[in-house]
Protein backbone atom coordinates (compact mmCIF):
# COMPACT_ATOMS: atom_id res chain seq x y z
CA UNK A 1 0.00 0.00 0.00
CA UNK A 2 2.59 2.45 1.14
CA UNK A 3 4.92 1.46 -1.65
CA UNK A 4 2.19 2.04 -4.16
CA UNK A 5 1.59 5.47 -2.75
CA UNK A 6 5.24 6.30 -2.94
CA UNK A 7 5.53 5.18 -6.54
CA UNK A 8 2.40 7.05 -7.50
CA UNK A 9 3.83 10.06 -5.85
CA UNK A 10 7.09 9.73 -7.66
CA UNK A 11 5.25 9.35 -10.91
CA UNK A 12 3.29 12.47 -10.16
CA UNK A 13 6.51 14.20 -9.45
CA UNK A 14 8.23 13.11 -12.62
CA UNK A 15 5.36 13.28 -15.04
CA UNK A 16 4.93 17.04 -14.94
CA UNK A 17 8.36 17.28 -16.46
CA UNK A 18 7.29 15.07 -19.30
CA UNK A 19 3.75 16.08 -20.02
CA UNK A 20 2.63 19.35 -21.36
CA UNK A 21 0.35 20.07 -18.44
CA UNK A 22 3.46 21.17 -16.60
CA UNK A 23 3.38 24.33 -18.63
CA UNK A 24 0.70 25.48 -16.26
CA UNK A 25 3.33 25.54 -13.55
CA UNK A 26 6.28 26.89 -15.43
CA UNK A 27 6.99 30.30 -16.80
CA UNK A 28 5.47 29.53 -20.14
CA UNK A 29 1.80 28.78 -20.34
CA UNK A 30 -0.64 27.79 -23.00
CA UNK A 31 -2.97 29.93 -25.01
CA UNK A 32 -4.91 27.36 -26.92
CA UNK A 33 -2.23 25.22 -28.59
CA UNK A 34 0.19 28.12 -28.67
CA UNK A 35 2.71 28.58 -25.93
CA UNK A 36 2.87 32.05 -24.55
CA UNK A 37 4.47 33.77 -21.59
CA UNK A 38 2.44 33.95 -18.41
CA UNK A 39 1.98 37.70 -18.52
CA UNK A 40 0.62 37.51 -22.02
CA UNK A 41 -2.02 34.89 -21.43
CA UNK A 42 -4.31 37.03 -19.30
CA UNK A 43 -4.10 39.85 -21.81
CA UNK A 44 -4.85 37.56 -24.72
CA UNK A 45 -7.74 35.91 -22.90
CA UNK A 46 -8.97 39.38 -21.99
CA UNK A 47 -8.92 40.33 -25.64
CA UNK A 48 -10.83 37.21 -26.64
CA UNK A 49 -13.60 37.91 -24.17
CA UNK A 50 -13.82 41.58 -25.01
CA UNK A 51 -14.30 40.48 -28.61
CA UNK A 52 -16.96 37.90 -27.92
CA UNK A 53 -18.84 39.62 -25.08
CA UNK A 54 -21.65 41.01 -27.21
CA UNK A 55 -22.32 37.72 -28.99
CA UNK A 56 -21.44 35.48 -26.07
CA UNK A 57 -24.87 34.08 -25.27
CA UNK A 58 -25.92 33.77 -28.88
CA UNK A 59 -22.78 31.79 -29.65
CA UNK A 60 -23.21 29.59 -26.57
CA UNK A 61 -26.66 28.66 -27.77
CA UNK A 62 -25.38 27.97 -31.26
CA UNK A 63 -22.41 25.89 -30.21
CA UNK A 64 -24.09 23.77 -27.58
CA UNK A 65 -27.51 23.66 -29.27
CA UNK A 66 -28.97 25.25 -26.16
CA UNK A 67 -27.56 22.56 -23.91
CA UNK A 68 -25.50 25.03 -21.89
CA UNK A 69 -28.76 26.15 -20.26
CA UNK A 70 -29.39 22.65 -18.97
CA UNK A 71 -25.80 22.33 -17.78
CA UNK A 72 -26.12 25.53 -15.80
CA UNK A 73 -29.43 24.38 -14.35
CA UNK A 74 -27.73 21.19 -13.27
CA UNK A 75 -24.91 23.16 -11.66
CA UNK A 76 -27.36 25.25 -9.64
CA UNK A 77 -29.41 22.24 -8.59
CA UNK A 78 -26.22 20.60 -7.35
CA UNK A 79 -25.42 23.71 -5.38
CA UNK A 80 -28.87 23.72 -3.72
CA UNK A 81 -28.98 27.42 -2.81
CA UNK A 82 -30.83 28.66 0.26
CA UNK A 83 -32.21 32.01 1.45
CA UNK A 84 -29.60 34.15 3.14
CA UNK A 85 -26.78 32.60 1.14
CA UNK A 86 -23.58 34.45 0.38
CA UNK A 87 -22.49 33.22 -2.97
CA UNK A 88 -19.61 34.05 -5.24
CA UNK A 89 -19.90 33.34 -8.94
CA UNK A 90 -16.54 33.81 -10.56
CA UNK A 91 -16.13 34.39 -14.29
CA UNK A 92 -19.88 34.73 -14.49
CA UNK A 93 -19.94 38.11 -16.18
CA UNK A 94 -23.10 37.60 -18.17
CA UNK A 95 -24.95 36.61 -15.01
CA UNK A 96 -26.29 33.33 -16.36
CA UNK A 97 -25.48 31.34 -13.24
CA UNK A 98 -26.25 34.19 -10.85
CA UNK A 99 -29.77 34.68 -12.22
CA UNK A 100 -30.45 30.99 -11.88
CA UNK A 101 -29.29 30.95 -8.27
CA UNK A 102 -31.44 33.94 -7.45
CA UNK A 103 -34.43 32.31 -9.10
CA UNK A 104 -33.90 29.11 -7.18
CA UNK A 105 -33.67 30.99 -3.87
CA UNK A 106 -36.83 32.94 -4.64
CA UNK A 107 -38.75 29.77 -5.38
CA UNK A 108 -37.60 28.32 -2.06
CA UNK A 109 -38.84 31.42 -0.36
CA UNK A 110 -42.22 31.12 -2.04
CA UNK A 111 -42.51 27.64 -0.66
CA UNK A 112 -42.01 28.83 2.89
CA UNK A 113 -43.72 32.19 2.55
CA UNK A 114 -45.57 31.92 5.83
CA UNK A 115 -42.29 31.95 7.67
CA UNK A 116 -41.30 35.54 8.49
CA UNK A 117 -37.72 34.59 9.41
CA UNK A 118 -37.13 33.62 5.82
CA UNK A 119 -38.10 37.07 4.65
CA UNK A 120 -35.34 38.65 6.66
CA UNK A 121 -32.97 36.02 5.38
CA UNK A 122 -33.91 36.81 1.84
CA UNK A 123 -32.75 40.37 2.43
CA UNK A 124 -29.36 39.03 3.43
CA UNK A 125 -28.87 36.98 0.30
CA UNK A 126 -25.89 38.20 -1.68
CA UNK A 127 -24.75 36.84 -4.97
CA UNK A 128 -21.47 38.36 -6.03
CA UNK A 129 -20.76 38.15 -9.72
CA UNK A 130 -17.05 38.50 -10.22
CA UNK A 131 -15.45 38.76 -13.61
CA UNK A 132 -12.09 40.05 -14.70
CA UNK A 133 -13.56 41.48 -17.86
CA UNK A 134 -15.61 44.67 -17.60
CA UNK A 135 -17.21 44.09 -21.02
CA UNK A 136 -18.69 40.82 -19.85
CA UNK A 137 -19.92 42.42 -16.64
CA UNK A 138 -21.63 45.15 -18.64
CA UNK A 139 -23.46 42.52 -20.66
CA UNK A 140 -24.61 40.94 -17.40
CA UNK A 141 -25.73 44.24 -15.89
CA UNK A 142 -27.77 45.04 -18.98
CA UNK A 143 -29.41 41.65 -18.86
CA UNK A 144 -30.25 42.21 -15.20
CA UNK A 145 -31.95 45.46 -16.17
CA UNK A 146 -33.91 43.68 -18.90
CA UNK A 147 -35.08 41.07 -16.42
CA UNK A 148 -36.16 43.73 -13.97
CA UNK A 149 -33.40 42.78 -11.57
CA UNK A 150 -31.51 46.04 -11.92
CA UNK A 151 -32.46 47.26 -8.46
CA UNK A 152 -32.17 43.93 -6.67
CA UNK A 153 -29.78 44.29 -3.76
CA UNK A 154 -28.90 40.60 -3.81
CA UNK A 155 -26.91 40.92 -7.01
CA UNK A 156 -23.51 42.54 -6.66
CA UNK A 157 -21.29 43.06 -9.70
CA UNK A 158 -17.61 43.08 -8.96
CA UNK A 159 -14.68 43.31 -11.29
CA UNK A 160 -11.89 41.16 -9.98
CA UNK A 161 -9.24 38.55 -10.64
CA UNK A 162 -10.05 34.96 -9.70
CA UNK A 163 -6.40 34.50 -8.68
CA UNK A 164 -6.57 37.34 -6.16
CA UNK A 165 -10.10 37.77 -4.88
CA UNK A 166 -11.00 40.89 -2.96
CA UNK A 167 -13.23 39.02 -0.52
CA UNK A 168 -12.46 38.16 3.07
CA UNK A 169 -11.50 34.71 4.32
CA UNK A 170 -14.38 32.44 5.32
CA UNK A 171 -17.02 34.76 3.93
CA UNK A 172 -18.84 32.68 1.31
CA UNK A 173 -21.29 29.79 1.45
CA UNK A 174 -20.82 28.84 -2.14
CA UNK A 175 -18.39 29.33 -5.01
CA UNK A 176 -19.18 28.55 -8.62
CA UNK A 177 -17.10 28.99 -11.71
CA UNK A 178 -18.75 28.10 -14.99
CA UNK A 179 -16.67 27.91 -18.17
CA UNK A 180 -14.04 30.11 -16.61
CA UNK A 181 -11.27 28.16 -14.94
CA UNK A 182 -9.96 27.01 -18.31
CA UNK A 183 -9.01 30.57 -19.14
CA UNK A 184 -7.01 31.45 -16.05
CA UNK A 185 -3.24 31.43 -15.98
CA UNK A 186 -2.76 29.55 -12.69
CA UNK A 187 -5.50 27.05 -11.87
CA UNK A 188 -3.91 26.27 -8.49
CA UNK A 189 -4.07 29.89 -7.40
CA UNK A 190 -7.74 30.09 -8.30
CA UNK A 191 -8.46 26.95 -6.28
CA UNK A 192 -6.52 28.24 -3.29
CA UNK A 193 -8.42 31.50 -3.41
CA UNK A 194 -11.72 29.63 -3.63
CA UNK A 195 -10.75 27.63 -0.56
CA UNK A 196 -9.76 30.77 1.27
CA UNK A 197 -13.01 32.69 0.79
CA UNK A 198 -15.30 29.75 1.57
CA UNK A 199 -16.75 29.16 5.04
CA UNK A 200 -16.57 25.81 6.77
CA UNK A 201 -19.18 23.68 5.04
CA UNK A 202 -19.05 25.90 1.95
CA UNK A 203 -18.99 24.26 -1.44
CA UNK A 204 -16.93 24.72 -4.55
CA UNK A 205 -18.57 23.86 -7.87
CA UNK A 206 -16.97 24.11 -11.24
CA UNK A 207 -18.68 23.64 -14.57
CA UNK A 208 -16.17 23.24 -17.35
CA UNK A 209 -15.83 21.87 -20.85
CA UNK A 210 -13.88 18.71 -20.40
CA UNK A 211 -12.59 15.58 -22.10
CA UNK A 212 -14.63 13.01 -23.99
CA UNK A 213 -13.29 9.45 -23.81
CA UNK A 214 -16.10 7.51 -25.47
CA UNK A 215 -14.50 6.14 -28.70
CA UNK A 216 -16.76 7.07 -31.60
CA UNK A 217 -18.34 10.02 -29.90
CA UNK A 218 -14.86 11.43 -29.28
CA UNK A 219 -14.08 11.49 -33.00
CA UNK A 220 -17.37 13.15 -33.80
CA UNK A 221 -16.86 15.68 -31.05
CA UNK A 222 -13.35 16.50 -32.28
CA UNK A 223 -14.62 16.91 -35.80
CA UNK A 224 -17.38 19.18 -34.58
CA UNK A 225 -15.15 21.34 -32.43
CA UNK A 226 -12.29 21.77 -34.87
CA UNK A 227 -14.23 22.18 -38.12
CA UNK A 228 -17.65 23.46 -37.16
CA UNK A 229 -17.12 25.75 -34.19
CA UNK A 230 -14.46 28.06 -35.66
CA UNK A 231 -16.53 28.44 -38.82
CA UNK A 232 -19.62 29.06 -36.74
CA UNK A 233 -17.72 31.76 -34.89
CA UNK A 234 -16.70 33.29 -38.21
CA UNK A 235 -20.23 33.33 -39.59
CA UNK A 236 -22.22 34.24 -36.50
CA UNK A 237 -19.85 36.38 -34.51
CA UNK A 238 -17.43 37.35 -37.26
CA UNK A 239 -14.50 36.17 -35.15
CA UNK A 240 -12.75 32.97 -36.04
CA UNK A 241 -9.65 33.36 -33.88
CA UNK A 242 -11.50 33.57 -30.59
CA UNK A 243 -13.42 30.39 -31.21
CA UNK A 244 -10.32 28.62 -32.44
CA UNK A 245 -8.84 29.52 -29.05
CA UNK A 246 -11.94 28.18 -27.32
CA UNK A 247 -11.69 24.68 -28.78
CA UNK A 248 -7.94 24.53 -28.32
CA UNK A 249 -8.13 25.63 -24.72
CA UNK A 250 -10.61 22.84 -23.98
CA UNK A 251 -8.02 20.29 -25.16
CA UNK A 252 -5.39 21.95 -22.99
CA UNK A 253 -7.44 21.78 -19.83
CA UNK A 254 -6.48 18.94 -17.44
CA UNK A 255 -8.69 15.85 -17.73
CA UNK A 256 -11.37 15.15 -15.12
CA UNK A 257 -9.29 12.95 -12.80
CA UNK A 258 -6.31 15.27 -12.83
CA UNK A 259 -8.42 18.33 -12.19
CA UNK A 260 -10.20 16.51 -9.34
CA UNK A 261 -6.87 15.78 -7.72
CA UNK A 262 -5.89 19.43 -8.11
CA UNK A 263 -9.05 20.42 -6.26
CA UNK A 264 -8.25 17.96 -3.52
CA UNK A 265 -4.71 19.32 -3.30
CA UNK A 266 -6.16 22.77 -2.67
CA UNK A 267 -7.66 21.34 0.53
CA UNK A 268 -11.18 20.45 -0.54
CA UNK A 269 -12.86 17.27 0.61
CA UNK A 270 -15.57 15.10 -0.91
CA UNK A 271 -14.16 15.94 -4.31
CA UNK A 272 -16.39 14.46 -6.98
CA UNK A 273 -17.11 15.06 -10.60
CA UNK A 274 -20.01 14.30 -12.86
CA UNK A 275 -19.68 14.03 -16.62
CA UNK A 276 -22.49 15.44 -18.71
CA UNK A 277 -22.98 14.41 -22.34
CA UNK A 278 -20.19 11.87 -22.05
CA UNK A 279 -17.65 14.35 -20.74
CA UNK A 280 -18.22 17.29 -23.06
CA UNK A 281 -18.71 19.13 -19.82
CA UNK A 282 -17.98 18.04 -16.27
CA UNK A 283 -19.16 19.41 -12.95
CA UNK A 284 -16.50 19.13 -10.26
CA UNK A 285 -17.47 19.70 -6.67
CA UNK A 286 -15.60 20.01 -3.41
CA UNK A 287 -16.41 20.81 0.18
CA UNK A 288 -14.45 22.84 2.67
CA UNK A 289 -14.45 21.51 6.22
Amino acid at each position, binding site marked *: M*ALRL*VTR*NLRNRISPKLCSASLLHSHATSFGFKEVREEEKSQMVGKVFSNVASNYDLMNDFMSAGLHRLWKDRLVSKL*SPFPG*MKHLDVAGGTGDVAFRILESINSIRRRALQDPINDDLQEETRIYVCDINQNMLNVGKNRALERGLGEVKSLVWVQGDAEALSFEDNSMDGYTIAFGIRNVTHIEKVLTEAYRVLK*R*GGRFLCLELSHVEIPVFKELYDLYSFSVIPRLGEVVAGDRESYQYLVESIRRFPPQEKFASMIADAGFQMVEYENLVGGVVAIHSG*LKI
Partner: protein
Amino acid sequence: MYRTAANRLLHHASLIKNSSGSHLLRLPILRTVIASSRFSTTADLQTFPNQTFNPSDSSTSSSSSSTAGDDSRHGRKNPRAEYEEEQARVLQASLRHVIKFGWSEEAMIAGAKESGVSPSIVGSFPRKEAALVEFFMDDCLQRLIDRIDSGEELRQLIPSQRISKLVRIRLEMQAPYISKWPQALSIQAHPMNVPTSFKQRAMLVDEIWHAAGDEASDIDWYVKRTFLGGIYSTTEIFMLTDRSPEFRDTWLFLDDRVKDAFDLKKTIQEATYLAEAVGAGMGSSLQGFVGKVFQR
Protein backbone atom coordinates in the same frame (compact mmCIF):
# COMPACT_ATOMS: atom_id res chain seq x y z
CA MET B 1 -13.97 3.94 16.74
CA TYR B 2 -11.07 2.07 18.34
CA ARG B 3 -10.92 -0.17 15.35
CA THR B 4 -10.53 2.69 12.90
CA ALA B 5 -7.94 4.33 15.08
CA ALA B 6 -6.04 1.07 15.32
CA ASN B 7 -6.22 0.66 11.56
CA ARG B 8 -4.83 4.08 11.11
CA LEU B 9 -1.95 3.34 13.43
CA LEU B 10 -1.22 0.07 11.69
CA HIS B 11 -1.21 1.84 8.40
CA HIS B 12 1.32 4.34 9.51
CA ALA B 13 3.42 1.63 11.07
CA SER B 14 3.60 -0.26 7.79
CA LEU B 15 4.56 2.92 6.04
CA ILE B 16 7.51 3.25 8.34
CA LYS B 17 8.57 -0.32 7.74
CA ASN B 18 8.51 0.20 4.00
CA SER B 19 10.45 3.37 4.02
CA SER B 20 13.04 2.26 6.56
CA GLY B 21 16.56 3.44 6.17
CA SER B 22 15.94 7.06 6.87
CA HIS B 23 15.29 8.54 10.24
CA LEU B 24 14.10 11.80 8.87
CA LEU B 25 11.07 10.12 7.39
CA ARG B 26 9.61 9.23 10.68
CA LEU B 27 9.05 12.61 12.16
CA PRO B 28 6.30 13.93 9.89
CA ILE B 29 4.51 10.61 10.09
CA LEU B 30 4.65 10.59 13.83
CA ARG B 31 3.31 14.07 13.91
CA THR B 32 0.33 13.24 11.74
CA VAL B 33 -0.50 10.22 13.83
CA ILE B 34 -0.54 12.33 16.95
CA ALA B 35 -2.53 15.02 15.30
CA SER B 36 -5.02 12.73 13.66
CA SER B 37 -5.72 9.87 16.01
CA ARG B 38 -7.95 10.20 18.98
CA PHE B 39 -5.62 8.09 21.05
CA SER B 40 -3.72 9.77 23.78
CA THR B 41 -0.24 10.93 22.92
CA THR B 42 1.33 8.39 25.24
CA ALA B 43 -0.29 5.58 23.30
CA ASP B 44 1.28 6.96 20.16
CA LEU B 45 4.69 7.03 21.66
CA GLN B 46 4.33 3.45 22.76
CA THR B 47 3.67 2.46 19.19
CA PHE B 48 7.01 3.83 18.14
CA PRO B 49 9.20 2.95 21.10
CA ASN B 50 12.58 3.17 19.41
CA GLN B 51 12.21 6.46 17.72
CA THR B 52 15.35 8.38 17.19
CA PHE B 53 15.17 11.58 15.33
CA ASN B 54 18.32 12.73 13.71
CA PRO B 55 18.07 16.22 12.30
CA SER B 56 21.56 16.17 10.81
CA ASP B 57 20.69 13.31 8.48
CA SER B 58 20.72 15.09 5.18
CA SER B 59 20.96 12.20 2.77
CA THR B 60 17.23 11.76 2.44
CA SER B 61 16.00 15.08 1.31
CA SER B 62 14.37 13.78 -1.85
CA SER B 63 12.59 10.85 -0.25
CA SER B 64 11.45 12.91 2.68
CA SER B 65 9.75 15.29 0.35
CA SER B 66 7.90 12.37 -1.17
CA THR B 67 6.69 11.26 2.25
CA ALA B 68 5.42 14.73 2.84
CA GLY B 69 3.25 14.11 -0.19
CA ASP B 70 2.15 10.81 1.28
CA ASP B 71 1.20 12.55 4.45
CA SER B 72 -1.10 14.85 2.64
CA ARG B 73 -2.66 11.83 1.01
CA HIS B 74 -3.16 10.18 4.35
CA GLY B 75 -4.32 13.42 5.80
CA ARG B 76 -7.10 13.35 3.29
CA LYS B 77 -8.34 10.04 4.56
CA ASN B 78 -8.91 11.27 8.06
CA PRO B 79 -10.99 14.24 6.91
CA ARG B 80 -13.28 11.69 5.33
CA ALA B 81 -14.11 10.53 8.84
CA GLU B 82 -14.21 14.16 9.85
CA TYR B 83 -16.74 14.81 7.12
CA GLU B 84 -18.92 11.96 8.32
CA GLU B 85 -18.79 13.31 11.85
CA GLU B 86 -19.72 16.74 10.59
CA GLN B 87 -22.57 15.29 8.59
CA ALA B 88 -23.82 13.37 11.62
CA ARG B 89 -23.65 16.50 13.72
CA VAL B 90 -25.62 18.53 11.20
CA LEU B 91 -28.23 15.80 10.80
CA GLN B 92 -28.57 15.36 14.55
CA ALA B 93 -29.23 19.07 14.89
CA SER B 94 -31.65 18.93 11.95
CA LEU B 95 -33.86 16.40 13.75
CA ARG B 96 -34.92 19.14 16.13
CA HIS B 97 -36.34 21.10 13.20
CA VAL B 98 -38.20 18.21 11.59
CA ILE B 99 -41.44 18.92 13.44
CA LYS B 100 -41.49 22.43 12.05
CA PHE B 101 -40.11 21.94 8.55
CA GLY B 102 -40.71 18.26 7.92
CA TRP B 103 -38.04 15.90 6.56
CA SER B 104 -36.83 18.58 4.22
CA GLU B 105 -33.89 20.64 3.10
CA GLU B 106 -35.16 23.52 5.23
CA ALA B 107 -34.79 21.40 8.35
CA MET B 108 -31.25 20.47 7.36
CA ILE B 109 -30.38 24.10 6.59
CA ALA B 110 -31.63 25.07 10.03
CA GLY B 111 -29.64 22.20 11.52
CA ALA B 112 -26.47 23.28 9.72
CA LYS B 113 -26.86 26.84 10.95
CA GLU B 114 -27.31 25.55 14.47
CA SER B 115 -24.15 23.48 14.34
CA GLY B 116 -22.17 26.39 12.98
CA VAL B 117 -21.27 25.26 9.48
CA SER B 118 -22.39 26.81 6.25
CA PRO B 119 -25.76 25.39 5.13
CA SER B 120 -24.12 24.79 1.78
CA ILE B 121 -22.96 21.49 3.22
CA VAL B 122 -26.50 20.17 2.77
CA GLY B 123 -25.93 20.19 -0.97
CA SER B 124 -23.20 17.61 -0.54
CA PHE B 125 -25.40 15.06 1.23
CA PRO B 126 -26.36 12.23 -1.06
CA ARG B 127 -30.09 12.13 -1.81
CA LYS B 128 -30.81 15.13 0.45
CA GLU B 129 -33.93 14.39 2.56
CA ALA B 130 -33.28 10.68 2.44
CA ALA B 131 -30.00 11.35 4.23
CA LEU B 132 -31.95 12.77 7.13
CA VAL B 133 -34.49 9.95 7.31
CA GLU B 134 -31.78 7.32 7.01
CA PHE B 135 -29.76 8.99 9.70
CA PHE B 136 -32.80 8.92 11.97
CA MET B 137 -33.37 5.21 11.25
CA ASP B 138 -29.75 4.38 12.06
CA ASP B 139 -29.87 6.49 15.16
CA CYS B 140 -33.02 4.75 16.39
CA LEU B 141 -31.53 1.33 15.72
CA GLN B 142 -28.45 2.25 17.70
CA ARG B 143 -30.58 3.45 20.58
CA LEU B 144 -32.60 0.25 20.44
CA ILE B 145 -29.45 -1.85 20.58
CA ASP B 146 -28.19 0.15 23.54
CA ARG B 147 -31.49 -0.41 25.25
CA ILE B 148 -31.35 -4.14 24.57
CA ASP B 149 -27.80 -4.39 25.88
CA SER B 150 -28.58 -2.53 29.06
CA GLY B 151 -32.15 -3.71 29.73
CA GLU B 152 -32.86 -6.27 32.45
CA GLU B 153 -36.59 -5.81 31.94
CA LEU B 154 -36.55 -7.73 28.67
CA ARG B 155 -34.98 -10.88 30.00
CA GLN B 156 -37.93 -11.67 32.25
CA LEU B 157 -40.42 -11.65 29.41
CA ILE B 158 -41.52 -14.62 27.30
CA PRO B 159 -40.51 -14.38 23.62
CA SER B 160 -43.82 -13.10 22.29
CA GLN B 161 -43.99 -10.37 24.91
CA ARG B 162 -40.36 -9.55 24.37
CA ILE B 163 -40.96 -9.00 20.67
CA SER B 164 -43.95 -6.76 21.13
CA LYS B 165 -42.04 -4.83 23.80
CA LEU B 166 -39.11 -4.27 21.43
CA VAL B 167 -41.30 -3.20 18.54
CA ARG B 168 -43.04 -0.83 20.91
CA ILE B 169 -39.79 0.68 22.14
CA ARG B 170 -38.70 1.24 18.57
CA LEU B 171 -41.98 2.74 17.43
CA GLU B 172 -42.13 5.01 20.44
CA MET B 173 -38.96 6.67 19.17
CA GLN B 174 -40.99 7.80 16.17
CA ALA B 175 -43.83 9.13 18.28
CA PRO B 176 -42.50 12.72 18.52
CA TYR B 177 -42.35 12.90 14.73
CA ILE B 178 -45.67 11.19 14.09
CA SER B 179 -47.21 14.18 12.31
CA LYS B 180 -44.34 14.18 9.81
CA TRP B 181 -43.81 10.42 9.64
CA PRO B 182 -45.98 9.86 6.54
CA GLN B 183 -43.54 12.13 4.71
CA ALA B 184 -40.61 10.07 5.94
CA LEU B 185 -42.31 6.90 4.74
CA SER B 186 -42.87 8.41 1.32
CA ILE B 187 -39.21 9.41 1.14
CA GLN B 188 -38.20 5.87 2.06
CA ALA B 189 -40.53 4.48 -0.57
CA HIS B 190 -38.93 6.53 -3.33
CA PRO B 191 -37.30 4.14 -5.81
CA MET B 192 -33.91 5.79 -5.28
CA ASN B 193 -34.09 5.19 -1.54
CA VAL B 194 -35.71 1.78 -1.43
CA PRO B 195 -32.48 -0.23 -1.30
CA THR B 196 -31.28 1.58 1.82
CA SER B 197 -34.62 1.73 3.57
CA PHE B 198 -35.22 -1.95 2.89
CA LYS B 199 -31.83 -2.84 4.30
CA GLN B 200 -32.39 -0.71 7.37
CA ARG B 201 -35.71 -2.40 8.05
CA ALA B 202 -34.18 -5.82 7.58
CA MET B 203 -31.46 -4.95 10.07
CA LEU B 204 -34.02 -3.70 12.54
CA VAL B 205 -36.12 -6.85 12.32
CA ASP B 206 -33.02 -8.98 12.60
CA GLU B 207 -31.91 -7.11 15.68
CA ILE B 208 -35.30 -7.61 17.33
CA TRP B 209 -35.27 -11.36 16.67
CA HIS B 210 -31.78 -11.57 18.05
CA ALA B 211 -32.81 -9.78 21.19
CA ALA B 212 -35.79 -12.11 21.47
CA GLY B 213 -33.26 -14.93 21.74
CA ASP B 214 -33.67 -16.48 18.33
CA GLU B 215 -30.63 -18.29 16.99
CA ALA B 216 -32.25 -20.25 14.19
CA SER B 217 -30.54 -20.44 10.83
CA ASP B 218 -32.86 -22.73 8.91
CA ILE B 219 -35.64 -21.84 6.51
CA ASP B 220 -37.59 -20.64 9.54
CA TRP B 221 -35.24 -17.66 9.61
CA TYR B 222 -36.85 -16.11 6.56
CA VAL B 223 -40.37 -16.91 7.68
CA LYS B 224 -39.81 -15.33 11.07
CA ARG B 225 -38.31 -12.18 9.63
CA THR B 226 -41.03 -11.79 7.06
CA PHE B 227 -43.65 -12.14 9.76
CA LEU B 228 -42.03 -9.62 12.05
CA GLY B 229 -41.43 -7.22 9.17
CA GLY B 230 -45.11 -7.41 8.37
CA ILE B 231 -46.13 -6.85 11.98
CA TYR B 232 -43.74 -3.93 12.35
CA SER B 233 -44.91 -2.21 9.18
CA THR B 234 -48.63 -2.66 9.79
CA THR B 235 -48.28 -1.36 13.33
CA GLU B 236 -46.27 1.58 12.01
CA ILE B 237 -49.10 2.41 9.60
CA PHE B 238 -51.73 1.89 12.29
CA MET B 239 -49.88 4.32 14.50
CA LEU B 240 -50.18 7.08 11.90
CA THR B 241 -53.91 7.35 12.35
CA ASP B 242 -54.05 6.47 16.02
CA ARG B 243 -55.49 9.35 18.03
CA SER B 244 -55.83 7.50 21.35
CA PRO B 245 -53.86 8.85 24.30
CA GLU B 246 -50.24 7.69 24.17
CA PHE B 247 -51.04 5.42 21.24
CA ARG B 248 -52.82 2.92 23.48
CA ASP B 249 -54.73 1.42 20.54
CA THR B 250 -51.51 0.93 18.63
CA TRP B 251 -49.95 -1.13 21.39
CA LEU B 252 -53.10 -3.24 21.75
CA PHE B 253 -53.06 -3.79 18.00
CA LEU B 254 -49.40 -4.74 18.17
CA ASP B 255 -49.94 -7.25 20.99
CA ASP B 256 -52.77 -8.87 19.06
CA ARG B 257 -50.70 -9.17 15.90
CA VAL B 258 -47.78 -10.75 17.72
CA LYS B 259 -50.13 -13.17 19.47
CA ASP B 260 -51.73 -14.05 16.14
CA ALA B 261 -48.36 -14.76 14.67
CA PHE B 262 -47.33 -17.04 17.53
CA ASP B 263 -50.69 -18.79 17.36
CA LEU B 264 -50.25 -19.25 13.68
CA LYS B 265 -46.82 -20.68 14.30
CA LYS B 266 -48.40 -23.18 16.69
CA THR B 267 -51.08 -23.99 14.16
CA ILE B 268 -48.51 -24.52 11.45
CA GLN B 269 -46.52 -26.77 13.76
CA GLU B 270 -49.60 -28.83 14.57
CA ALA B 271 -50.41 -29.08 10.90
CA THR B 272 -46.91 -30.34 10.22
CA TYR B 273 -47.21 -32.98 12.92
CA LEU B 274 -50.56 -34.05 11.46
CA ALA B 275 -49.09 -34.20 8.00
CA GLU B 276 -46.18 -36.26 9.28
CA ALA B 277 -48.54 -38.62 11.06
CA VAL B 278 -50.71 -39.00 8.01
CA GLY B 279 -47.61 -39.45 5.88
CA ALA B 280 -46.32 -42.14 8.20
CA GLY B 281 -49.68 -43.94 8.16
CA MET B 282 -49.92 -43.83 4.42
CA GLY B 283 -46.35 -44.98 4.14
CA SER B 284 -46.91 -48.06 6.26
CA SER B 285 -50.05 -49.06 4.45
CA LEU B 286 -48.29 -48.53 1.15
CA GLN B 287 -45.44 -50.68 2.41
CA GLY B 288 -47.92 -53.34 3.35
CA PHE B 289 -49.55 -53.14 -0.06
CA VAL B 290 -46.28 -53.34 -1.94
CA GLY B 291 -45.14 -56.16 0.28
CA LYS B 292 -48.32 -58.09 -0.52
CA VAL B 293 -47.89 -57.47 -4.22
CA PHE B 294 -44.32 -58.73 -4.23
CA GLN B 295 -45.12 -61.74 -2.11
CA ARG B 296 -47.12 -63.22 -4.91
